[in-house]
C-alpha cells in the first residue's frame, strides 16, 4: 500500500461522501420540520438525468441550474401531496422514488434522448446524441495546500461542488441551531400546534423545507453524475438515496455530524471498490458491494428501537401531517 494509494482512497472517500452529504442536508431540514421525504432516490435520479442531458446540450453550469429547478419542482409536488393534502408520507415518498426512476429512465432512453437533445440544442453534432457519458466537472487544486502529503488530496483537490457542500453543511448547521429560521423549522417539527398558536405558518415552513430537500437531492444526483461517475445507465444512483436517508438518522439530524457520517459511508464504499481491485472477494464481488447497504440496515435497526429514538431526539412530530383541529 503506497502513499499514493492511501491518498487516492482518501480523496475518493470525500468525493463519494459528498453524494450522501448533499442529499442528506436537505433531508435533515425536511425531517427537522416534521416531514419525511422518502422520494430522495427518485429525486436524485431526476437530478442525475437532468445533468446528463444538459451537460451534453449546454455544459456544466446549465446542468447544475436545471437540476436545481427539477429538484424544486419534485419537492413542490411532494409538498402539495404530503403537507397540503396530508397524504401518507411513506406511501407518497416511495411513489416519488418510482416516479423519478421511471421518468429519468424514459427521458434518457436512446431514441427519446436523441429527440430531446436536438430540441434543446439543434446544433449538437450527431455523435453527441447517443453517447452514454458526459464530461466530468473539472477538479480545482488549491495551490500549496493540495500538496500536503496524505490530507492534501483529501481536502484540497476536488471540484467546486465538493468544497461547496462542505461549507454549506457548516452554514446549514449554523442556520438550524443559531438563527430564528432554524428555531422555527425545529419547532414546527417538534410541536406544530404550538408553533401555529404563536403565529408561525406551519404549512409554509414545511413546504419550504420539502422543496429544499428536493433541490438538494437533485443536486446530489447531478453531482454524482457529472462530478463523480459520468457514465449513464438507468438507475445510475443505485439506491444511494436510501443510504442518505439512513445517514440522516445516523447524524441525528445535525448537518455537522452529517459530514462525518457521509465520509464514513463514502469511505466504506470506496474501500470495498479498492479491495476488489486487489482481487479480494473476487469469488463474490457482490458481498463487498453489499457493505454500504448492510451498514445502512444496521443503522436503521439500531435506531428504530423506540427508546433509542427518544434518546437521540428524533423530531417529535416526524411523519405526522399537521391539521388545525376544526
Amino acid at each position: 500500500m503506497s502513499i499514493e494509494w492511501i491518498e487516492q482512497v482518501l480523496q475518493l472517500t470525500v468525493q463519494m461522501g459528498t453524494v450522501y452529504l448533499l442529499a442528506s442536508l436537505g433531508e435533515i431540514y425536511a425531517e427537522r420540520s416534521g416531514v419525511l421525504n422518502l422520494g430522495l432516490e427518485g429525486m436524485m435520479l431526476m437530478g442525475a438525468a437532468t445533468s446528463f442531458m444538459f451537460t451534453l446540450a449546454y455544459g456544466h453550469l446549465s446542468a447544475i441550474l436545471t437540476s436545481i429547478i427539477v429538484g424544486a419542482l419534485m419537492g413542490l409536488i411532494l409538498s402539495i401531496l404530503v403537507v397540503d393534502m396530508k397524504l401518507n408520507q411513506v406511501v407518497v415518498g416511495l411513489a416519488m422514488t418510482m416516479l423519478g426512476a421511471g421518468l429519468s429512465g424514459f427521458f434518457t432512453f436512446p431514441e427519446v434522448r436523441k429527440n430531446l437533445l436536438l430540441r434543446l440544442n439543434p446544433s449538437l453534432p450527431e455523435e453527441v446524441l447517443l453517447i452514454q457519458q458526459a464530461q466530468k466537472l473539472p477538479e480545482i487544486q488549491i495551490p500549496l495546500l493540495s500538496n500536503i502529503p496524505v490530507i492534501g488530496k483529501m481536502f484540497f483537490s476536488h471540484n467546486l461542488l465538493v468544497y461547496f457542500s462542505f461549507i454549506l453543511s457548516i452554514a446549514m448547521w449554523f442556520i438550524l441551531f443559531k438563527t430564528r429560521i432554524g428555531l422555527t423549522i425545529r419547532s414546527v417539527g417538534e410541536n406544530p400546534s404550538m408553533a401555529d398558536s404563536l403565529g408561525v405558518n406551519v404549512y409554509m415552513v414545511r413546504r419550504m423545507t420539502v422543496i429544499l430537500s428536493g433541490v438538494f437531492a437533485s443536486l446530489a444526483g447531478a453531482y454524482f453524475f457529472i462530478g463523480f461517475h459520468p457514465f449513464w445507465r438507468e438507475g445510475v444512483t443505485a439506491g444511494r438515496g436510501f443510504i442518505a436517508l439512513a445517514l440522516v438518522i445516523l447524524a441525528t439530524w445535525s448537518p455537522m455530524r452529517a459530514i462525518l457520517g457521509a465520509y464514513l459511508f463514502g469511505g466504506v464504499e470506496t474501500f470495498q471498490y479498492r479491495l476488489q481491485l486487489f482481487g479480494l472477494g473476487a469469488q463474490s464481488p457482490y458481498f463487498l458491494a453489499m457493505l454500504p447497504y448492510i451498514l445502512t440496515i444496521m443503522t436503521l435497526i439500531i435506531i428504530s428501537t423506540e427508546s433509542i429514538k427518544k434518546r437521540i431526539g428524533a423530531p417529535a412530530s416526524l411523519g405526522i401531517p399537521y391539521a388545525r383541529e376544526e
Partner: protein
Amino acid sequence: MEELVSLRGIIKHFPGVIANDNVSFTLRKGEIHALLGENGAGKTTLMNILYGLYRPDIGEIYVEGRKVEINSPKDAITLGIGMVHQNFKLIPSHTVLENIILGLKKSGLVIKSRKIGEEIKKLAESYGWRINPNAYVWQLTAGEKQQVELLKILYRDAKILILDEPTSVLTPQECRILLQALRRMAKEGKGIIFITHKLDEVFAISDRVTVMRKGRVLVTKETSETNMSELAQYMVGRPVIFTIEKKESRPSGEAITIKNLKAFNDKGVLALKDVNLKVMKNEIVGIIGVTGNGQQELVEVIAGLRKASGGSLIVDGVNIINSSPEKIIELGIAYIPPEPLRYGIAPNLTVLDNLFMKAYRYKPYSNGVIVNWKKIYNKAEELIREFQIVPENPYAKARSLSGGNLQRLILARELSGLIGEKIPRLIVAAYPTKGLDVGATEFVHKTLIEYSRKGSGILFVSEDIEEALMISDRVAVMHDGKIVRVFRPGEVDIDKIGLMMAGVEIAFK
C-alpha cells in the same frame, strides 16, 4: 370602564354540536373575568375563536372598540391577545428561551440569546418568578412550565390574556404563586380571561364571572354579588352538594397488599423506594402527595405498565408482580389512568371502540376470533345511558368528547364489569377528577363511593387534599417514593398533612 374585548353574537357549529350559540362576552381593562361552565359548555371554543384558531360561523369581535377580523393566531398576537392553552404547548427538548421567542421577529435573525435571556429573567422577576432562560423545559416543574407559558405571551406585550384552566395541573402552592402574579398583571391594566372549574379560585381572584352552559352564556355577574352555590347551580342546572354523604365502610378481605415495592422512573431514578400499603375490599384508600413523589409509578406498576424492580403485589395470596396487563385485567383490577387523552383513550376511534377496548376479546362480546358487534352496540348504548356520556352516539369519535365525558367513558369501560360481569376487585384511580367540572366531579366521586360500598377496593390518587379527605376511608401520604403515614380523615389536621407532604417528619401521638 374601558372595554378591551367585546364578542357579539358568536355562533360556532361542529359536526353534530353547537359549541357556541349566540354568545356575547366582554372583557374590561384591568379586570380578571372568570369564565365558568361544565365540561363541553364551549369555553375553549369561544376562546379559540378570539385567538384566531377557529373562525366563528356568525358573530363579531371588537377589540378596544374597533371591529376586527381574526383569521389566525398571528392576527390575534398583533392585536395584543395572548393565550395559555388548556394543555401545555411547549417543546420539552428546547430551552425556555427558545420556547418563548419562537415566531418573534425581534429576536434577531441570529438569535441574541444573551440579551433576550436577560430580558426574560427580568420580566419573570417582576412577577416574583425565578426562571433560568437556558434551562430545558423538560427539567421544569408544572408550575414553572405554566410560568413559561405566561412569559410567552407577556414577552409579546399582550394586554389581553386568555388563560384556559391554567391551575388544573398545579399544586396548591404553585397555584397561589400564579394567582398572585395574575393580580399584578391586572393591576398593570391587562385584561385577563380566566377559565377554571374551581369555584374557590373564582372568588379568590376574579372581578366578574360569566357562566356558560350548552354553548350559551347564562349570566355575567360581579363576583362580589354572587356565591358558590349560586354559581354551581348555574353551571349544572341543579343544586350541587359540596359534601358527600357516605356510609361507614365495612372492610372485608384484602383487595391487594403492596409489600416493599420498588421501581424506577423513566429517567432511571429509583422512584418507588419502599412502598407498603394494604387496600381492603369495601374501602377507599386515598393517596396524597406532591406530584412526582412516585404516585404515577405506583399506579403504573399495579396496572402492569411498569416493571417493578423489587417487592410484591399480593392478590388472594398470590404474588402478581410484573404480570402482564392482560393478566391483571382478568384478575379484576381496573385502572383509571391520569391524562385520559394520553393514556386512557384512543382519540381517533369511536366511543364504542374505546368502551370495548378491553372486553372485545372476552365472552360474550366475542368468541375469541369474531366480534359480536350487535351485542357490543347494544351494551354500548346501555353504558352511554348509565354513565350519561354526551353525545349519545356510540359512533362519535372519542376526540370530540369534552374532558368530563372522556372521564365518564373511561369509568364506564373500567367499572362496568364488562369482563366476567362482576364488579372490579380493585379500582386504581389516578387523578380521576382533574379538569372536570363540579357536576362531573360529583359524578366521579359518587361512582367511586358506590363501587366501594358494593365491594371494590379503591386506590384513589389525588393532588387535592380536601378531595382526598372527603371521599377516602383512609388516607396515605406519599413522599419521596414511600408511604410516610396512613390515617383516617379527621385524625390529622390539614396543616400537618401539608408538612408531611413536604417531607417533614411528624411525631404521632
